[in-house]
């Protein structure tokens, strides 16, 4: 046996990947349901996506607070009773607020579903936002914020977004103590009324679905005054910062700097997007990337360094993110720029390109496993107002993009002078 030579492999780049199609249902009120029925385990995930993100608030913090407080009281139940209603069945009911959307979701053993949907319905149709619950939310959010503001990674994440989009844009705005303190029950109720009670929604259900799933969903959500999602978001203009370079001292005793480099980048509809996903992977998107190989595995400047495209619907940014030793922060940044430059000057070698392609294909294959992951892919496609051609074209882009194209894209997007540069110590 020769341990020095690798066993034969099937190149993953030659795989045919398929995204299992969804089924759709339309509830009586017109709200659309996307469903993936799969998996041996008796589990289900239901996610209701509302057009209720911070894009729609007229004052910072309202969308997030309203979303959080969905579980804090209805006319029938206190917060404790709501939590008990879910937790008795070992169910996880969570809510999240994003930029354009806000979600309410449920993970449960399928056998308990009929007990839980009515409670979920109650949260959407009958939340009351008690004064004392809001006060508590404010107090505890403020405390959490105070702790987070000591953390350079947290501070850097907020600041870099504000440089790229401007502090008045939903993608660039961040929570401040004073905006939290000013929130009122009336504002939350108004927001709830418009964006949940009478809001736009779309449902994603996946897992081992019971036979009567449509009936169950329609009985619980089809009679509500919800409207089908239009995915229409009023235009907002970004006001990027003029200054490009920032060095900020957040903590005198820090031993590391949180480094963020960023430049604006178009959304998934742009013709370059799919090929840039390949370029990004090679540059800083996985453990074998140029950035990781050089800055962690050769220099030992950091525990990890990554680049990524923000998952935003309307416009995006290309980011490089790492935490590096205080004395090597500037050296780290100049190595990042060196790697950018290398991509614009020399074609990516055949072996390296094939490796990245195989890696990406293998990862997608592994990722398409199980109902929740499949639905996760679909959700992203649907919320971005794309269709299955996006998935298949992305796979095609991985298979077919050439070293020449990658060099052209590098020249177009990877120039150091285009990047905002931030270190928070």
């Amino acid at each position, binding site marked *: *046996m020769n*341990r*020095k030579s*690798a*066993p034969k*492999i099937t*190149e*993953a780049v030659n*795989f045919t990947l398929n995204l299992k199609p969804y089924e759709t249902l339309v509830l009586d009120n017109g709200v659309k349901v996307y469903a993936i029925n799969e*998996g*041996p*385990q*008796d*589990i289900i995930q239901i996610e209701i996506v509302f057009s209720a993100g911070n894009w729609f608030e007229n004052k910072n913090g309202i969308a997030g607070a309203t979303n959080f407080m969905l*579980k804090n009281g209805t006319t029938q139940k206190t*917060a*404790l009773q709501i*939590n*008990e209603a*879910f*937790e*008795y*069945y*070992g169910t*996880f009911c969570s809510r999240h607020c994003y930029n354009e959307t806000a979600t309410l979701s449920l*993970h449960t*053993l399928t056998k308990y579903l009929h007990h839980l949907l009515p409670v979920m319905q109650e949260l959407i149709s009958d939340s009351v936002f008690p004064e004392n619950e809001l006060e*508590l939310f404010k*107090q*505890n959010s403020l*405390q*959490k914020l*105070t*702790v987070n*503001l*000591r*953390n350079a990674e947290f501070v850097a994440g907020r600041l870099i977004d504000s440089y790229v989009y401007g502090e008045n844009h939903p993608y660039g705005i961040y929570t401040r103590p004073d905006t939290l303190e000013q929130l009122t029950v009336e504002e939350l109720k108004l927001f709830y009324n418009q964006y949940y009670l009478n809001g736009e929604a779309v449902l994603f259900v996946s897992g081992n679905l019971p036979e009567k799933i449509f009936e169950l969903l329609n009985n619980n959500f089809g009679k509500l005054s919800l409207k089908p999602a239009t995915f229409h978001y009023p235009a907002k203009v970004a006001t990027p910062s003029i200054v490009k370079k920032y060095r900020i001292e957040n*903590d005198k005793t820090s031993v*590391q700097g949180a480094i963020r480099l960023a430049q604006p980048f178009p959304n998934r509809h742009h013709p370059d997007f799919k090929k840039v996903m390949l370029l990004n992977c090679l540059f800083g998107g996985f*453990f*074998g990337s140029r950035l990781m190989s050089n800055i*962690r595995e*050769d*220099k*030992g*400047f*950091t*525990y*990890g360094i990554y680049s990524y495209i923000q998952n935003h619907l309307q416009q995006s940014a290309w980011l490089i993110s790492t*935490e590096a*030793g205080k004395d090597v922060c500037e050296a780290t940044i100049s190595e990042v720029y060196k790697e950018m430059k290398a991509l614009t000057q020399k074609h990516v070698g055949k072996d390296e390109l094939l*490796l990245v392609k*195989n*890696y990406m294909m*293998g*990862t997608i*294959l*592994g990722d398409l*496993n*199980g109902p929740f992951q499949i639905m996760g892919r679909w959700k992203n496609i649907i919320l971005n107002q794309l269709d299955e051609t996006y998935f298949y074209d992305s796979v095609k882009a991985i298979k077919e993009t050439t070293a020449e194209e990658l060099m052209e894209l590098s020249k177009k997007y990877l120039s150091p002078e285009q990047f905002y540069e931030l270190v928070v110590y």
Partner: protein
Amino acid sequence: MKIYSKSLINFVVLEKIFQVINIFNVCCRITTLFMINFERFILSNGLRLLVHTDKSTPMAVVNVLYDVGAKDENPHKTGFAHLFEHLMFGGSINIPVYDEPLQQAGGENNAFTTNDFTNYFCQLPAENIETAFWLESDRMLSLAFSKKSLEVQRKVVCEEFKENYINKPYGDVWHKLRELAYSTHPYRWMTIGKELKHVEDASLEDVKGFFHKFYTPANAILVVAGNVDVVQVKLLAEKWFGPIPNGEKYERKLPVEPPQTAPRKLEVKADVPLDAIYKCWHIYPRLDDKYYTADLITDVLGGGASSRLFNALVKDKKLFSNINCYHLGSTDAGLLVIDGKLVKGVEMKIAEAAIDEEIMKLLEKGVSETELEKVKNKTESAMVFEDIGLANRASSIAIYELLGDASLVNTELDKYKAVTTASIAMVSKEIFNENNCSTLYYLSKTI
């Protein structure tokens, strides 16, 4: 899927890179809904092989667990098991780099170190599974012991240490708490190590010694899972791992933690914005029947928004902005922990008395049948959700095999189901004894 973890804290140093995977809950499984099939073999060199087939996935997972963790370290060279884990990716005797061939085969990998063990896993398209056998067997055979790799990874681990334990508010809490709660047992230190210097001083001789002592077939468990064929896997295992020499079986002789006989208290002042309290009590070894009762007690007190501590102390009395109850899930007797951050302006003594009051309530009145049912349902549900991922199933099988019985992967829920309100009453009294308690006040210097 990290939201399903029961014991939620970073006692595990997650390597080699920081993707979040669900490894915190190294406990429990499911009986009724979804059996996890497996077959078990032992190779002549002592390597244990377990094969779990799942034909619904196109992928395969190869998981290698080594029976060595931070608890096996020399007290003057801590953090070594974890540093060593990094070095396992620095090239083996016949293969200069580990990652590239795996990525070329469409695979990815990760590893993590705990106080009890070190686990490596890779996932790749099932037809390329032999690549994983080739890579994993070569680094079990011997590492390349590259000087450069040691130099770089020492720095990488130091940055990891800084990022997670120095440069974050409250980052050093667990260093202090472990030293307070354990007087003797090597759970006294964290997997990342006691201090940066221990990592900085690691030498190539240390690395070689560690490898030969712990990284032997008899000290390892190989689990292969996914779209595989048992016969094929057996042949591949014999081919690649079979020729590796036995090595000497490591016999673990750890110092035993003596029972705690008096309360322990420590007060720390640090540059943090809020006062925090940490209280912990010694509980039971992983396979003790009382372990399951203790696990459910943590859910009664601190599991989720309907739990007792959250509702009494955050919602009603408004003394804490957050409060948690969990346990470490370690193999040897672990700790049950209550921790919380105080609302600004609340006095520590008042906050602590309120925790004590909730504990007294539990001791005096116990739990209701409904409350017990709730935490059992939660456990069942958490187990099912954790088993969704193939890699999770593979590492669970390995961990149960390490504990002594892989079939626990399918039977452990019964142990939870057997817990009664009476056993909760009995075990609570045993745990919540003030002589069994260590308390850390972590105070804000700025007040």
